[in-house]
């Protein structure tokens, strides 16, 4: 009897899955257009899945093996089941392979079940709790119905009661695996995830590449509304990406804003976008909420606002403004979802259309527009800090090997110490460098991350025009934010440069034998990876090499390298200043304290400012440039030209 109903069951499940898939595709297609190579993407998908996705999943070995067994077993079992039981192609080895595949899947699902026994807080509950049982139902029933096929059990084994029971279990399994996959069950992640990998907006991320620069907003059409107001304002493949989320909560576990009790949880944010795209309320969400914001009070629809001007819609504005754009969530997400892109897209709307950048946001943006720096300082006073250094100006020398990009740290007394140290190092190595001086402007980083794409583009274009007047080999900067923007975000506006973070450059100079250091005599040192240097640009090694060259053995923090915890200073977060239960820099200094270090080496003016702002800190904060400058051994003969020149010039002025 089973023989006759099996094809019916399988093919009706498949038919329902196809209908569901079509409906789901329609949801995604509400989004704006975004051209991607469809066939190439589909062809690349298996590799992206097997290599890139499993590279991220593989950070948790048990889970990775569990997933390989379950998913691999399922895909094979599903295909073979259609062949063997659906089409009746039971000859030869097929049945045996099917047995093996379903057994493999069953073993995998046992591990899934084990993890679900005491699930960590980051995992979603709700329908996800039944998933291991559904997996077992599917694999076990497929296994059992295949036994007679391969002849281990007689064809007419057991009674019809047994057959009906088996069929019922199979229906459950098929329902979850096929029907649920496209109708919004937990298995949706497999369907949406596979297509998301194929049509990802940042294909460069696959195959070990990196793509972290924000995408430019087209400002040419004066009639169009800017940024993302409603879920359907996202591009279709962004919507598809949201739908691929498996609610694993790895992003949540890494998010500094969530840990600080600010009203942001990247996982919930992605789920809210899914709610918005399908329409409805977030009441069915079964994971950790935004801290202090109860679930069930927000709702949205594909063409309704995400953030309401007044009252509640899908997401509160504070949620979006809590993000430091540290990218920890993106780095950690096995589905390669782009949270930061989505957050900035929505911020763009709030800033450019609502004019609602919170707290100091509006003031900072006004300053950037009027004075080209966020503090509203006189742009003619950019070089006051270096009045005694006699730095060569690009305007005078026209060309130099290195263009030293100073950044807005020139207005900050703390960062001026770092800059002086860096100048000393460059001079010590005899580098031919020059600065833009008063011609330099803010790079546009803060404006862009506060959603003000117009001000970003205006600053960027003017900087690019200035840079185009001079000849230089490379740009060196001690500010990872300027570094990232110049390197990765000016390209779209036709500014292409070779940009070095000072730690990378110093490491190179040391390698080349142009710097010599005294041995380190201080205490224990740890190193804080700046997000915009590490996760954004993959530079984890150079700063450590420099510290090693100084004779420092780094006492690593538990969260370092690609898992480094943000200092809280990125993305304009100190400007929008959304309150939480604790402060992000305090948490980071706690991480430092746990290593017992007396000193934390940093490579970013923002990090310095944030971490130095922590009261009763146990460690001192020094920029790598300062450590290097302190340890610098200058050769006794003063053939280092720039310094000599500087001395002469000072004499002239004094006489």
């Amino acid at each position, binding site marked *: 009897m089973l023989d006759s109903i099996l094809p019916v069951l399988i093919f009706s499940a498949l038919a329902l899955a196809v209908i569901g898939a079509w409906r789901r595709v329609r949801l995604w297609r509400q989004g704006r257009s975004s051209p991607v190579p469809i066939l190439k993407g589909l062809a690349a998908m298996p590799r992206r899945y097997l290599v890139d996705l499993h590279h991220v999943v593989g950070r948790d070995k048990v889970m990775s093996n569990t997933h390989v067994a379950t998913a691999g077993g399922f895909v094979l079992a599903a295909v073979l089941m259609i062949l063997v039981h659906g089409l009746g192609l039971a000859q030869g080895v097929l049945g045996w392979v099917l047995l093996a595949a379903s057994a493999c899947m069953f073993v995998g699902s046992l591990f899934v079940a084990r993890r679900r026994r005491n699930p960590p807080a980051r995992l979603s509950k709700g329908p996800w709790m039944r998933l291991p049982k559904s997996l077992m139902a599917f694999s076990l029933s497929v296994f059992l119905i295949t036994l007679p096929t391969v002849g281990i059990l007689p064809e007419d084994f057991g009674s019809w009661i047994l057959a009906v029971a088996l069929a019922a279990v199979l229906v459950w399994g098929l329902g979850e695996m096929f029907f649920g996959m496209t109708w919004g069950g937990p298995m949706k992640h497999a369907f949406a995830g596979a297509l998301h990998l194929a049509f990802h907006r940042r294909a460069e991320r696959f195959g070990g590449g990196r793509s972290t620069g924000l995408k430019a907003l087209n400002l040419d059409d*004066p*009639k169009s*509304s*800017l940024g993302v107001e409603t879920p359907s304002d996202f591009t279709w493949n962004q919507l598809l990406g949201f739908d691929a989320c498996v609610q694993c909560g790895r992003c949540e576990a890494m998010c500094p804003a969530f840990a600080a009790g600010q009203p942001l949880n990247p996982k919930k944010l992605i789920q809210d976008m899914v709610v918005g795209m399908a329409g409805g309320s977030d009441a069915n969400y079964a994971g950790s909420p935004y801290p202090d914001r109860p679930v069930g009070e927000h709702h949205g629809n594909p063409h309704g606002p995400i953030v309401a001007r007044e009252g509640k819609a899908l997401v509160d504005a504070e949620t979006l403004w809590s993000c430091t754009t540290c990218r920890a969530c993106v780095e950690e997400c096995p589905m390669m979802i782009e949270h930061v892109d989505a957050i900035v897209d929505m911020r763009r709307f709030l*800033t*450019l*259309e*609502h*004019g*609602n*950048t919170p707290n100091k*946001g*509006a003031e900072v*943006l*006004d300053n950037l*527009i*009027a*004075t*080209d720096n966020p503090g*509203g*300082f*006189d*742009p003619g006073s950019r070089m006051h800090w270096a009045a005694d250094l006699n730095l060569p100006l690009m305007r005078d020398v026209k060309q130099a090997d290195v263009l030293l990009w100073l950044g807005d740290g020139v207005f900050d007394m703390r960062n001026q110490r770092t800059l002086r140290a860096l100048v000393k190092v460059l001079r010590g190595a005899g580098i031919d460098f020059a600065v833009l001086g008063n011609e330099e402007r803010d790079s546009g980083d803060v404006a862009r991350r506060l959603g*003000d794409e*117009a*001000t970003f583009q205006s600053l960027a274009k003017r900087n690019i025009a200035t840079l185009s007047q001079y000849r230089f080999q490379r740009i060196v900067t001690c500010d990872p934010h300027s570094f990232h923007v110049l390197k990765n975000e000016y390209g779209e506006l036709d500014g292409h440069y070779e940009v070095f973070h000072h730690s990378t450059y110093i490491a190179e100079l040391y390698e080349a034998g142009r710097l010599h250091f005294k041995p380190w005599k201080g205490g224990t040192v740890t190193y804080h990876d700046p997000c915009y240097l590490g996760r954004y640009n993959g530079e984890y090694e150079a700063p450590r090499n420099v510290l090693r060259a100084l004779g420092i053995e780094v006492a690593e923090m538990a969260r370092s390298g690609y898992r480094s915890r943000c200092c809280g200073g990125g993305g304009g977060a100190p400007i929008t200043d959304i309150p939480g239960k604790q402060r992000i820099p305090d948490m980071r200094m706690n991480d430092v304290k746990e290593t017992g270090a007396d000193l934390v080496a940093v490579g970013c003016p923002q990090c310095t400012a944030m971490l130095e702002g922590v009261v009763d800190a146990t460690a001192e904060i020094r920029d790598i440039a300062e450590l290097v400058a302190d340890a610098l051994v200058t050769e006794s003969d003063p053939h280092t030209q720039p310094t000599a020149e500087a001395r002469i010039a000072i004499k002239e002025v004094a006489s």
Partner: protein
Amino acid sequence: MQPEAHAKAALEVAVLVSIGRHPLTGRARRADQDARGVELAMSLDKARITLMHAGALDDDSESALRGYLGMGFQTLTLVEQPRDADVIPALASALSETKPQLVISGERAEQGEGSGLLPYLLAERLGWPVVSGLASVEKVEDGVATLLQALPRGQRRRLQVRLPAIVTVDAAASAARQSAYGPARRGELRCTEALAVPDEASSEWTVQPARKRPKRLKIVKAASARDRFKAAAAKAEGGGGQVLTDVTPEQGAEAIFKLLKEEGVLR
């Protein structure tokens, strides 16, 4: 929601906006006080607000004017005037055409003459009252507005004025909201032609950058923080002051002259 009734009850407000100038960089921007004036207008219940500027249109002034549109307006009326024109006649005729009940402007412009006389000259021409230094408009009822005027040291005075009237705001009014790029860009500058009267007087002036004015130091002999605080918050005691009423212009001028001598302004 009855749009008809709404329209009837609406209070017609015109805000005069000028091209501002950033104090450090000199870049054109929305003038701070005028933007506060717009904010004040937006705080009024059921107001129908017209933004009005009299002047020339070029890249700089356009970007500054769009700054006001970015506060959430679809149009701005631009009374086109050449650079050297006296804009008072043009503004007066534009205002008598549109007949607003309340005209709001900043205390003084951030560039040009910046004498702060415009609201007064306009009021003189139109025969309307002027109230300066507003902190807020509390209500408007039956053609009478209840205003809160800001006085030094955070003091406030409640005034009633019969409309139509001109009011001006300074830094005591609430700060202007953020100007959003999208609406600023989409908004429309509605140009209207107006008679241009050249400013005869100003053509004879020589203009030079202002020098920083010396500030009188207030010497406070205070032993404790409490005393210092009291001194800082105290009302200005016009000890030696004098109120002259019913005096001839000569007598008045004499008194002023004497005071200036005493204070060392004239030597």
